[in-house]
């Protein structure tokens, strides 16, 4: 795992709750609002299950984490490039901007979406939340924080590398045990 310079993280009084919201003007049509919210809820829950941080959806203007789907040059100096290439990006703490390339064939169900360029939204959401929390890219291929993701590939389970990295920033969720993670990694490897 890696961090941004200075190991920035969200500093809040305990218990830490970060709010998030979707841009009312920058969404996509190919997935329903319910599908998108369900996927993001699941992605946030994966991180909150390992650290003492919870996430709650709120109004866009006041949210800590602002999520939106954008095309091309969208004003942050990091233009998106159409189908595939760059899938999304997010800013380090405590900026909170979380951008996805609206041109992608975002999918929540590969059985339903047969496109060869379909990209799993939950996998990318889980990865970008890692950046929002303060993690950089990992060199472990199986880690969620590895920088690349092939089309039609799903990678949503946090690996030990991801967990150790984020827990060094925020501490451990009291309900989390590495045993359960090892168990799921072993079953995954087999």
């Amino acid at each position, binding site marked *: 795992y890696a961090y*941004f*310079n200075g190991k*920035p993280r969200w500093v809040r009084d305990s218990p830490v709750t970060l709010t998030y919201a979707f841009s009312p003007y920058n969404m996509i049509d190919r997935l329903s609002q319910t599908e998108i919210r369900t996927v993001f809820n699941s992605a946030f829950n994966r991180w909150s299950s390992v650290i003492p941080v919870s996430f709650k959806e709120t109004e866009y203007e006041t949210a800590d984490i602002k999520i939106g789907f954008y095309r091309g040059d969208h004003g*942050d*100096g*990091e233009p*998106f*490039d*159409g*189908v*595939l*290439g*760059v*899938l*999304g*990006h*997010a*800013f*380090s703490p405590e*900026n909170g*901007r979380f951008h996805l390339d609206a041109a992608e064939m975002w999918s929540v169900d590969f059985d339903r979406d047969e496109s*060869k*360029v379909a*990209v799993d939204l939950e996998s*990318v959401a889980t*990865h*970008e939340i890692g*950046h929002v929390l303060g993690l*950089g*890219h990992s*060199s*472990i*291929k199986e880690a969620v924080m*590895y*920088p*690349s*993701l*092939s*089309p039609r590939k799903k990678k949503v389970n946090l690996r030990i590398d991801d967990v150790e990295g984020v827990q060094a920033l925020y501490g451990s969720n009291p309900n989390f045990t590495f045993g359960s993670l090892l168990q799921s990694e072993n079953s995954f490897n087999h």
Partner: protein
Amino acid sequence: RIVPESVTVITTTETHNATWHDFSKFLYAEQGSHVSGMSQLKKYFHRFGYLSETTSNFTDTFDKQLETAVKLYQKRLGLHVTGKLDSDTISTIVAPRCGVSDNSPHGLHVTRH
């Protein structure tokens, strides 16, 4: 040596960004190679944190700086470190990815905002 453009890598045209997919023509290129369009590959490495900002004059020659960048890329991405654009390396380069730099001390230029 210069390799023919018809070389096939593991990836397919349908599944990768058009610009990056062109990088497949650099398969097996190594230091000293001169291939048209290699400056685009250097821009890719610059964008994702492997070539410094001072290396602004990106030519089509596979120079020492590019070899160093390739080695660093291979190390950071968990690939076999050869310094050459082998099949695994090219496949990883053309794969869709996150836009955050792999060497991102400040994230996405947050200081600008």
